[in-house]
């Protein structure tokens, strides 16, 4: 057991939970829970003028998304600062490496996808029970993230190589897809 003997169980309302001490404090998990096939890795990127604006927008998005049923935001605080691309340009065995196209400090030496004026990018990743749940949460999160200092919202497409589900932002937000 990960808890190395320090884990403790607690029964609340007839359900048994396990408390596992971790560096952050305590991890709580139900002893038994249902499983179903879900959808992983929905995401969008907040492209902002500076780190403060990016963080404020990301936190607003997390607030708007965290109460949506059927989805979770798996990263601590719901925010990822270290987005990845699939594979590597240099190390053949790496399955994911730094997302250079969206890294501001690499704008001058890589094929950047950052518009002018963008100096910080944060990513929101979400997993869900089904596609409609993820789309509804993304819609709410993107709307909340559109605040001063945010230049654009994008998403990691990964060349369409990462999984069967795709979430085109224009369709999700109700706009017509470009011809």
């Amino acid at each position: 057991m990960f808890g190395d003997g320090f884990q403790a169980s607690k029964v609340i309302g007839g359900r048994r939970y396990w408390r596992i001490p971790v560096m952050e404090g305590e991890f709580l998990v139900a002893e038994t829970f249902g499983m179903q096939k879900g959808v992983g890795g929905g995401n969008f990127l907040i492209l902002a003028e500076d780190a403060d604006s990016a963080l404020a927008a990301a936190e607003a998005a997390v607030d708007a998304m965290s109460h949506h049923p059927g989805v979770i935001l798996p990263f601590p605080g719901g925010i990822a600062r270290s987005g990845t691309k699939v594979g590597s340009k240099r190390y053949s065995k790496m399955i994911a490496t730094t997302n250079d196209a969206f890294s501001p400090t690499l704008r001058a030496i890589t094929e950047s996808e950052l518009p002018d004026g963008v100096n910080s990018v944060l990513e929101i990743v979400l997993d869900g029970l089904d596609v409609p749940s993820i789309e509804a949460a993304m819609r709410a999160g993107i709307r909340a993230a559109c605040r001063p200092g945010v230049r654009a919202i994008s998403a990691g497409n990964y060349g369409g190589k990462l999984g069967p589900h795709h979430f085109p932002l224009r369709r999700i937000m109700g706009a017509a897809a470009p011809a």
Partner: protein
Amino acid sequence: MSDQVVLTLRAPLEQRLEADAIVPDRFPALDARAIAGLPVWYGGRAAALGDLFTVTGERSERVLVQGDLTWAVGLGAGMVGGELVIEGAAGRDAGLAMAGGVIEIHGTAGDNAGGAAPGASRGMTGGEIVIRGNAGADTGARMRRGLIAVTGDVGQGTGRGMIAGTVVIFGAAGGGTGRWIKRGSIVSFGAVVRPASFRYACTYRPPHIRLLLRYLATRYGLPVTDSQVAGRYHRYSGDLAELGKGEILEWAGA
């Protein structure tokens, strides 16, 4: 079969009543006459339950007892299921060594609620006791599993020798709270006198407390505040004179 069996005290008790016949999980098999005929001891003399209580309803595992039962000892002792609601005070040993079911006391509870019989190694091994008032000494002593919630103050030795389980105290806790516990949680929102053999660990927001308090508010309507649900708690590990895997969680505010 009725929704519930109601036992109403005919006259105030003036002597000790051995009330361990009032155990809800036995009542589904009994009609009103059989319930009234259950043997009890009152003032050291043999009596029938019907001599002291009027009985309404039959064959139900929900039992409502009305009256001041401060003199009644062992209400719900050893029960394994069902629901016992006491509208009034309860005497000592309520829920003694119970293994399941729910006891709700709308008044004060005497000593040793959910505790162990003399010489026994274990107190309650399951179920839930909710006391809407103060509780006496040794509440939850030697309990092995289960939950006790007290909306008022508790006496000395609360949770003494607990093996596991949870005691939640919304008021103050007397001296010796948690002494000799092996595992288990004592959650306190008022002043608590800790034994010297507890050591401070940290101040944090325990995720299971959030779940537990929401459960108590939803299931029993206890007056839980948002600042208690989302608040920080001082964690003291103990009893270090024993296994040391127990804890006293003292509310530290929002």
